[in-house]
């Protein structure tokens, strides 16, 4: 008998290097090109970039560049000068803003579908694609990894990391994660 209801493995990954680039499509493309990065052909597509990075595109005007944290300085050295030359596109370091989780195994979808209304099946979210969707009432980026086994990478705003970790544990059928410092109601009644 497994300790959890599902056989999914949930792992909180270490901080990664993340840069967010936004702007008019033309300027965004030009800046990325100047920095030496490929432009993903479609929204929702992940392409490989320099320094082992992955470029995730969301719509015409938004891109995330993700890599191992050790590459953060190298990426900054490429991206910041390139964007400085373009007037209507910008890049910001957002490595500290996101927490990253990996959910893998044959029942990974069983876990994630408890929070995500979007169809995450392999033919709707193939490997190498990413989608921004709701996950337990917050925004999450979910991508299907290029692995033999079913595996998803989740990115959520870091401030929600504890909340998401708790949900992932419970959705997997395990015990709730400890959540000190969470109270749903103010403690003091107003004396009238």
């Amino acid at each position, binding site marked *: 008998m497994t300790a959890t209801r599902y056989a999914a493995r949930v792992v909180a990954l270490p901080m990664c290097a993340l840069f967010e680039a*936004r702007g*008019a499509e033309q300027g965004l493309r030009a800046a990325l090109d100047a920095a030496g990065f490929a432009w993903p052909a479609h929204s929702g597509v992940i392409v490989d970039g320099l320094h082992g990075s992955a470029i995730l595109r969301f719509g015409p005007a938004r891109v995330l560049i993700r890599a191992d944290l050790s590459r953060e300085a190298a990426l900054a050295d490429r991206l910041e000068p390139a964007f400085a030359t373009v*007037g209507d596109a*910008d890049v910001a*370091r957002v490595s500290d803003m996101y927490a990253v989780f990996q959910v893998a195994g044959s029942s990974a979808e069983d876990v994630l579908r408890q929070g995500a209304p979007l169809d995450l099946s392999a033919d709707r979210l193939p490997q190498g694609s990413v989608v921004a969707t709701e996950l337990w009432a917050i925004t999450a980026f979910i991508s299907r990894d290029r692995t033999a086994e079913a595996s998803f990478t989740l990115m959520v*705003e870091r*401030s929600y990391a504890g909340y998401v970790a708790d949900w992932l544990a419970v959705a997997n059928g395990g015990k709730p994660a400890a959540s000190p410092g969470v109270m749903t109601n103010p403690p*003091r009644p107003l004396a009238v």
Partner: protein
Amino acid sequence: MTAMRLPNGGLVDRTQPLRFQFDGMEITGFAGDTIASALLANDIVLAGRSFKLHRPRGFVGAGYDDGIMVDRLSPRPAPNQLAAVTGIEPGAVYRSVSTWPSARRDFGAVAGFFAPLLPAGFYYKTFMRPSWHLFEPLIRAAAGLGRVPVETWQPTSESRYGDCDVLVVGAGPAGLAAASTAGASGARVMLVDDQPSPGGRLLHDGFADQAWLAEMLAMLEAMPNVRRLPQSSVWAYHEHNLLTVIERAPSDARDLDFRTWKVRARQVVIAAGAQERPIPFPDSDRPGVMLASAARSYLHRHGVRVGARAIVFTNNDSAYATALDLAQAGSAVTVLDARPTVAPEVQARAADRGIRLRTGAQVVRAIGRARVSALEFETAQGRERLDCDLVAVSGGWNPAFHLASQSRQATSVWRPDIATFVARHASEDFSIAGAATGTFGTSDCAREGAAAAATALGRLGIKSPAVPVPESGDAFVANEVHPLWFVPRSKGAGKVFVDLSGDVSTDDLGLAMREGYDSIELIKRYTTAGMGVDQGKTGNVNVIAVVGALSGQPADAVGTTTFRPPYVPVEFGAIAGARSQARLYPWRHTPLTGWHVEQGAVMYEAGLRWQRPGYYPQPGEDWSAAAQREARAVREGVGVYDGTPLGKFQLKGPDVPRLLDLAYVGDFSKLKPRRGKYSVMMSDDGLILDDGVTFRLDEHRWLLHSSTGAADRVHGHLEQLLQVHRPDWRVSLIPVTTQWANATLCGPLARDVLAALNPDFDISNKALPFMGMVEGHVAGLPVRVFRVSWTGELSFELNTPARHGPALWQAVMQAGARFAITPVGSEANHILRVEAGYLSTGHEVDGTADVHDLGLSGLIGPAKTDFLGKRSMEIRRRADPSRFELVGLLPEQGQMVPEGAPITPGGDRIDQEGFVSACVMSVAQQRPVALGLLREGRRRMGETVRARVRDRIIAMQVVEPVFHDASRSRVKS
């Protein structure tokens, strides 16, 4: 003993006897029994009492059409378990609902003597003097449903989303054919059925089709693209093919009690079958009177023969199957057929089994109280009486198209041949097949199911394969029904109950109509017909027909009521899933939360899901003492608070100044790099949306700060401006709120603490003036420092990438130790900002105030000709110049005033002329001080106004809205 378990037969597992208790009696059943079947097997026919009158009641149906409930006292106490669908558990203790001491001997039966005082709608008429509340507790205690157990137990539930190409509701012949067809095409299929085993009525009918059933099951098992959900019910059909399903005891997750699915199906096939309806007659609610199909179901599914001397009362052929099977099982059977003639082949089959048949028969009344013991009936030959222990009734079949109706894409239409309503729809989203459309033969149902699936697949552009359908003919189907809606009361006969769950009789329906409730929707609500446990599954059509008969109209002219979810009862715990405790709502933490918690901070939400420290109580302190101490530390020394949640947006582009000038009332185009400006953001209806400080980082980049609680609103507002209203403007906007952690030093000694952090930049007032910024390092950590203040004291906001947040905070506490630095929570911050007269979104900025109301006219750039909201604001002010304006208030006699308290003329209970937006115990003035909005407040300085707090009136003096350092000399020091 008359109801009994037969030595053979049924689908129960006779190798697994299970013992349980019901109303104190020890009962043995088998694995696979429901509570109902196990009780019947032990000849327990009286299992409950009616909702209002506590009449003895027995099982009428064998599924969700039955209304008998029991409370499970252990294990896992839970009220209102439907006995006919809930499986027995070993060692369980059940008791009948709302009875005392038991269903058999219920004290509540005295309610029967008060029946004349308890007609429909009695609670509007009787028990009103001297006060309804005098009688209410007794009536509520006596009525209806089980009590929520005192012991806390939560089911283990999961709530999840699903998607499929075709969702099939029901696994009878039509549903199985539909699912097999859809599955064989390769489409993603979900097959939902409320029974533990698929087959629908084939489990107690159509034994010639068992081979076909086995073939279908084998096909479905072999299809990985088909997901079967047994013991599951589709209980709601929402817009755009979103359906809610409850899966009970899922086989793939043994620890779960429930799984709730929210399924988006591209196509739906509703093959939910049909429900048999009774023929109500006087006292037909007695235990032992049940639906003919139920008697057959108990016989074949559970091996229980529910009566040895059975009378079958019917107006259609389908009940003959029950008669023949009961006779085969050894019952002495008489059929009373209301029709004047019966087909010869049917008569012959009945005669072969030794069944007596009387045509043109009408039951007059049932005899017996705790159990039916005889029937009186009339034929052309006159009135007769026949002893019995079971009456199996069939008045026809009602197609179950409730879900189609819930989708709001179907209406009901009358079919006279089967004397009931069926669905009419032209939706492209779903199909209905089988008995749910009024088709009753097995082969026909299967063919319709396959065709419905083919239609669904066609709509998806998928080719459908052929699947086999059973070819055997059914002997008895209700293809023609001789309408008989009820048998009226004759003199001396008992009531005719049409809706058993609500104790609604024909008398009640007549009374409602005489009192003027002339539409079926009003009659439903007034009498509660159709509102009980079975939601009218067996009674609705009879109610409609009775109303028609009493009003002289056909049933189809009366119409149906509106079907709404839930189709079956659903536990709240199942809907909630795992949403409890910390998972009830999203919550957010800053990188410094660990430190706050370690220091004993009391944490709670303070804006946009952020869990923040409210105060840091020391031993012996309550919240007020802690907040006072922290606020005093800021006024007299130095404090530090976690300002991480403040909204932050990085802007870049040549049109950023234009955007800021449009969105804010201030003028940003001349702002120099490294300088900030405080301004107010308006919505296009001229009211304040937010306030905040925007800094120009360099020639091209800006950092816009919003308030914590308005961050998402401001982001959406700016994106709408850029994407919709000004798509040609060259601006990029990147939210960076949580990229930065923030430790804000505040107080007269703030600069001293900053100096102790070894900054590599000049922190003098000249180099870093108020509203200035600098980037550099403190304690070896990269920081951006902003000189803004929200406390009315010298302040430095130290922002560092969030990964350095804990290290920065530690460094600040270490450096500040010799200055007795104090961590400051939201409560103290509130005191400080009220003293300083600073605004707060949600208090003074309440969605009705504009920039002039709050005394901020000076923020409007003198050279600005326009900004968002300007015109609306001016039009509003011109139309009503008498505005609520920001004032300070000094409550008399040291009284605190609740925030939100209305200010009324004289303190009277009349329309308010203002309200108190905030009230705190000021550390600067050692007394309560308040801010408020008061009509024409600025010209009423010195006046005394009055706040109304329930029955108290609190006098307050109107003063300027600032109580500390009005010149802002400390802020700018």
